[in-house]
Each structure stands twice: as C-alpha cells, then as structure tokens.
C-alpha cells in the first residue's frame, strides 16, 4: 500500500495544486507538505522486500531509497526557491507529477514500464519549459518553444531506442548467430545512444544547452537533477538485469568509454570559449555528465562508485548552480540590459554559490565532487594513463572556463561607486533626488544557497557515510562481480 501511496499521493496533490495554481504561496506550501509526507513514506518502506501488483514487481533497494530521499530533498529546495525565483504557473504541479513518476521508476523493476515512465517525465517537462508565470503580460519566446520542441523530439527518439533495446533483450539468447551482428552489441549500442541522449553527452547535448539558455533556471535545475540522475540509475539497473550484454560486448564498452572521454574534452573546450553565464554553466554540467558516464562505462567497482557518487554530487551542485544563477539574474535595481561584471559584490551569496557549484562540478577538494572525481580518476588509471590524462585535461579546460567566466562576470570591480558632487548654486539637499538604495539578496533564498553550499562542503569533508551506502549497493550488483 505504501508503494502505491508513494506514487499516487503526489499525483493527487499535483491535480489539487494545478487547480489552485494561481495562489502561488498556498500551492508552494501544499507542495512542501506533500514532499515531506513523501519523505516519511520513503523512510517507512521496507528495503529489498519485493511485492507484486498487477503482475509487476515493486521493490526499493538501498540505493533507490537514498536517491529517492535525495530527489525529494531537491524537490524541497526547488519549492523553497520558487518563492523568489521566476517560474511558470504550472511549475509546482508538474514537479510533483515528476516526483511521482520518478518514484515509480525507482520502485518498478520492469524495464518497459521504467522506459515509458521516463518518457512521460520528459513529456511533462516540455510543459514546464514553455510555461509562463501567473498573469504574465509577455508572449512566450520563440526560442523557448524551439528548445521545448528539440527536447521533446530527442527524448522521444531516446525512448524509442531504449524500448527497442528492451524488446530485444526479452528474446536475447547468449551467443552469436553466424553472419549477423551480435544482438548483444546491437542492444548495447541502442542503449548507449538512448542514454547518451538522455544524459546529454556530446554530440547529443544540444537539448541541454538550449534548455539552460532559454528555460527558467528552476525548470533547468529540476530537469537536469531529477531526470538525468534517474536515467543514470536506470542504466545501472539495466546492466544489473542483463549482465550478459556487457560480457559479450567488450568492444562496444570501449567505444562508449571513448565517447565519454570525447564528451569530457569537448565540453572542457566549449567552456573555454567566450559565452554567457548560462551557456558556460551548461558546458560545466556537460563536462560533469561526461565524467559520470565515463565512471559507469569503466564497469569497475571504483568507476561505478565514482559514477554514483558523482550523480549524487551533480544533483546538489546543479541545484546550487541554478538557484545561484536565478538569484544573479534578478533585477538588481540598476539600469537593465547592461552586462555586469561585479556580480560578486552585488550578490555575494549567489555569486559565491555559483563559484562553489562550479568548483564542485570540477571535483575540487574539499567540495562534494572531489571524492567522485578521485574514484573515477582511479578507475581511469586502471584502464591506462592515456584515458586518465584525457580526463585530467578535460578537467583543466573546464576549470579554465570557470575561471574565465568568474573573471568576466563575477570578480570585476564595483560598478556602483557613488561620486558625491558639491551642491550647485541655490540647490539644497532636499532638491536632490533620493539616493538609490539597492535591495539586498532575499534572505530565505540566500539561506537556501548557503545551506546547499554547506551540504556540498559537508559531503566533501565527510563522504564516508555515503560511500559506505554506495559500497554496500555495489556489492549487491551482479554485473560488477561477473566482470
């Protein structure tokens, strides 16, 4: 019963919040209550005790529970941030619906159902991309519609490829038929392409850059943190369910690893090129996606632990990145339409958040990403010095990209130095226009950003509990033992 409650309770609340969507404050509080109830339900669920419902197995693994709690935590952060950051009028109901679908993905073990649930999350995300705020007086931008259309097409193509692969696994028999491509290789190639599309690996990344460029920051945050990480977990589940695919396709695994390396290095190069704050942030995320995917494609205990840890770090860092970005883009009381270079002075908490999230994505100690990077570098070292060098070079390039954007937009001298001019003849103090007072950062959003920074730092300084959970989960994965 609790399993069904975990899936259907947020759906009913999504419907309720959709009806009340114009009352933003009420809807946000209702959503927060829903997510906290979800956390309680997730904690009550028995671990690794499968149950059957309508011929489908429902079960929650340790790893699934950890990520479910992380996703719900991200939901809480998103709803709190929604009080201050711009978002569409349907953002809250659709995020609740997405959380319900993701709960279903983590609970249901059937690959067909998982694929369709992942696909339906993408369809609901399309609606949030083109969503306008309550009572908006502007038209939706054509670029936003184009970004939504691109996302829709690529996600449906990914679904089709993934579904075909799962249909083939259903009739897959180990061993090759003479005179045709091994079915295992074909399936793995289909899966690799579909997950590369979902995880935005280069050259399948354009949906992510467009999303980050044109969608509201909160929409990008929820889409990338929830959907990409869930896709990664599904891929691990696939490897666990069909270990023979990996055993029979060592060459395909090498190609996948090569693809991840290309993704890391190209993303690093793109981050170096002059681009906006949003675009550079997108390239940093792409770089991190490549690193995580490499860890998974390494198919070793170290690589997998690094990939799972990296996925966890990505959810935190990306949330922090977009909350900071959203705060930095708020109207700041100064002349609009001017590219500011003193954002650290103007918005100190948000700008620090952006730098910290970028450094965490790069894996700089003592932040959350350091441990995952270390594990993935170790996995790469096992494969040879060349692969490790490429990863390190990619990290260096992405780091230079972050330094560039920080120098261009964040660390510049203050642009608000007020020059006090002497009073003119006949002028009094009362004749002068009132002194401009710039608003400080919204306190609750600043606290949220600080909290996310502290969590990132905490995970970096004390990763042992999370590592222990990941190690335990990996020990239960048959495909790692088989390889």
């Amino acid at each position, binding site marked *: 019963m609790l399993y069904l409650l975990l899936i259907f309770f947020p759906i009913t609340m999504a419907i309720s919040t959709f009806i009340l969507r114009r009352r933003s404050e009420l809807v946000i509080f209702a959503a927060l209550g829903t997510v906290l109830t979800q956390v309680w339900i997730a904690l009550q669920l028995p671990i690794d005790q499968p149950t059957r419902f309508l011929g489908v197995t429902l079960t929650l693994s340790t790893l699934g529970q950890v990520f479910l709690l992380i996703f719900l935590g991200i939901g809480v952060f998103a709803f709190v941030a929604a009080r201050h950051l711009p978002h569409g009028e349907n953002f809250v109901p659709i995020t609740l619906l997405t959380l319900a679908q993701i709960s279903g993905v983590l609970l249901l073990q059937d690959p067909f159902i998982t694929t369709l649930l992942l696909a339906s999350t993408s369809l609901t995300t399309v609606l949030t991309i083109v969503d306008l705020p309550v009572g908006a007086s502007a038209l939706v931008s054509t670029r936003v519609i184009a970004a939504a259309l691109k996302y829709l097409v690529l996600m449906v193509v990914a679904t*089709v490829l993934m579904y075909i692969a799962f249909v083939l696994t259903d009739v897959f028999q180990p061993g090759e038929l003479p005179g045709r491509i091994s079915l295992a290789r074909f399936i793995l190639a289909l899966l690799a392409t579909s997950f590369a599309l979902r995880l935005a690996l280069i050259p399948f990344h354009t949906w992510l850059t467009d999303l980050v460029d044109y969608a509201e920051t909160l929409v990008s945050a929820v889409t990338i943190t929830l959907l990409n990480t869930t896709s990664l977990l599904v891929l691990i589940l696939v490897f666990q369910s069909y270990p023979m695919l990996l055993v029979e396709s060592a060459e395909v695994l090498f190609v996948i690893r090569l693809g991840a390396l290309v993704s890391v290095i190209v993303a690093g190069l793109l981050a170096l090129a002059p681009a906006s704050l949003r675009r550079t942030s997108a390239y940093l995320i792409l770089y991190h996606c490549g690193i995580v995917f490499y860890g998974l494609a390494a198919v070793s205990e170290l690589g997998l632990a690094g990939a799972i840890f990296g996925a966890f770090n990505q959810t935190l860092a990306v949330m922090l990145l977009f909350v900071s970005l959203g705060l930095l883009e708020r109207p700041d009381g100064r002349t609009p339409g001017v590219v500011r270079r003193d954002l650290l002075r103007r918005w100190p908490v948000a700008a620090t958040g952006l730098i910290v999230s970028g450094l965490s994505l790069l894996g700089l100690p003592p932040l959350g990403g350091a441990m995952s990077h270390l594990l993935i570098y170790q996995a790469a070292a096992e494969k040879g010095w060349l692969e490790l060098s490429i990863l390190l070079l990619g990290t260096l390039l992405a780091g230079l990209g972050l330094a560039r954007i920080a120098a261009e937009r964040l660390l510049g001298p203050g642009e608000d130095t007020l020059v006090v001019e002497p009073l003119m003849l006949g002028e009094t103090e009362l004749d002068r226009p009132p002194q401009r007072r710039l608003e400080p950062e919204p306190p609750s959003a600043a606290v949220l950003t600080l909290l996310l920074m502290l969590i990132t730092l905490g995970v970096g300084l004390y990763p042992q509990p999370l590592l222990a959970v990941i190690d335990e989960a990996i020990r239960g994965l048959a495909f790692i033992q088989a390889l």
Partner: protein
Amino acid sequence: MSINWLLLGIGITAAVILLFRDWRITVAALLLNYVAQAFFLVEQQFISGDLPIFGFAVSTLLIVKVITGISVALILGITALTFSREYGLENLDEFGMAELRRAARAAQRQRANQPFQFSEYVLPFWAGVLALLASLILPRVYAIAPTVASDFVWYWLVLTGILTIATAVDVLKIGLGLLLCVSAVDVLYMAVVSTPDASGLNVIPLALLSLFHLLLALAVAYLSGLLYGRLKTLDLSELYR
C-alpha cells in the same frame, strides 16, 4: 499470391504522412494507420479474441488500440481546427499585441508568396523510396520479429517516422513522425514479447504505451497551438528566424 491489405494500408498511410503537408490529409492517414495496425496485430495472431461482441470474439487490445488511434487523431484534429482561436490575450501588454499583429501580417505575406511547388515533395518522395527499400531488405538481413510481415511493418513505421521528422517543415508533422516511431515500437513489442520464448504481454506496459501515445499527441498539440498562437504559422523556419 494473396495481397495483405492491412500491410498495404499501413504502408500507404505512413507514406501519405511522409509525403503530404496538409494536416487534414495527414491526420486522417494517421487514424487509418492506427486502425490498420490494430487489425494487423489481430491478423498476425499476436493478440487473440477475448471479448464476445455480436457473436464474434474480439480482442480487448484491438479495441484499446482503435480507441487510442481515434483519441490521438481527435486531439490533433481538434487542435488544428481551433488554431485560429485566440487564447490568453487579456493579460498581454501593448508590446505583445503589436508582436502578434506583426506575426499575423508576416504569416499572411508568407502564405501569399508561397504557391504550390512540386519540388517540395521531391525530398520526401525519395526518402520514402529509400525507406521502402530498407524496409524490404532489413527483415531478410536482420530479422527480429517472428514474421516477415511484422518485421516489415515495424521497420517501415520507424523509418518513415524518422524521415518524416527529418523532412518536416512544420511542428505538427514532426509530431506525426514521432507518433509513427512510437507506433513502430508498439508493433515490435506486441510481435516479439508475445512469442513463446519471450516474457509475454503484460497489461501495464500496454496501458502505458497507449497512454504515452495520448500524452505525446497532447504535447504536440500543445506546442503546435502555442506556436500558431505566437507566430500564426506552424512553419519551423519562422521558429528559428
């Protein structure tokens, strides 16, 4: 040699979607494609009759597939019929209204300056020929489904779907291409999973597949409506201008 009319129906309707631009023709072809697919699955005995209606054993899945097809066609058809209606203008400011007027003028000019050109159909036609050749060869080279006919159907649907997306000039047509691709997956799933060696058909994936068709149609209809409301045209070139 007997002609498989259902196979022919699926082939022709998918080709019509690939070739033509008028939504009245393509949405009608999509509906016929869904109906032909449903009867094809019954004919190939992937699903058996379990519901007695007027003395005939009709499959529940057949009814579900037909209802899904009708719903998808209705969603897209009703959306296309109501394109000219204006929604949510009450909150728009003067700049927004001016932008809409400008878009309407631009769309009208474009329609007036674009007479019928036969050359626009050359690329989809040859793409269709290529898809046909591939769909005829692939079932022999790389057979996956239990019968050649079902292999041809899913290869043909997926290839015409992809080529429809690739050659599309408007949003609605991209949606039709996506729906053809999902239909291909539907046929492949039914054909392969219902074989004795496979895990067998399960009601939840089938229900979710039908739901996915509807959600996809809704998403395409929503985006099309949004784009038409914004630019008074579905043309993709205007979207990226």
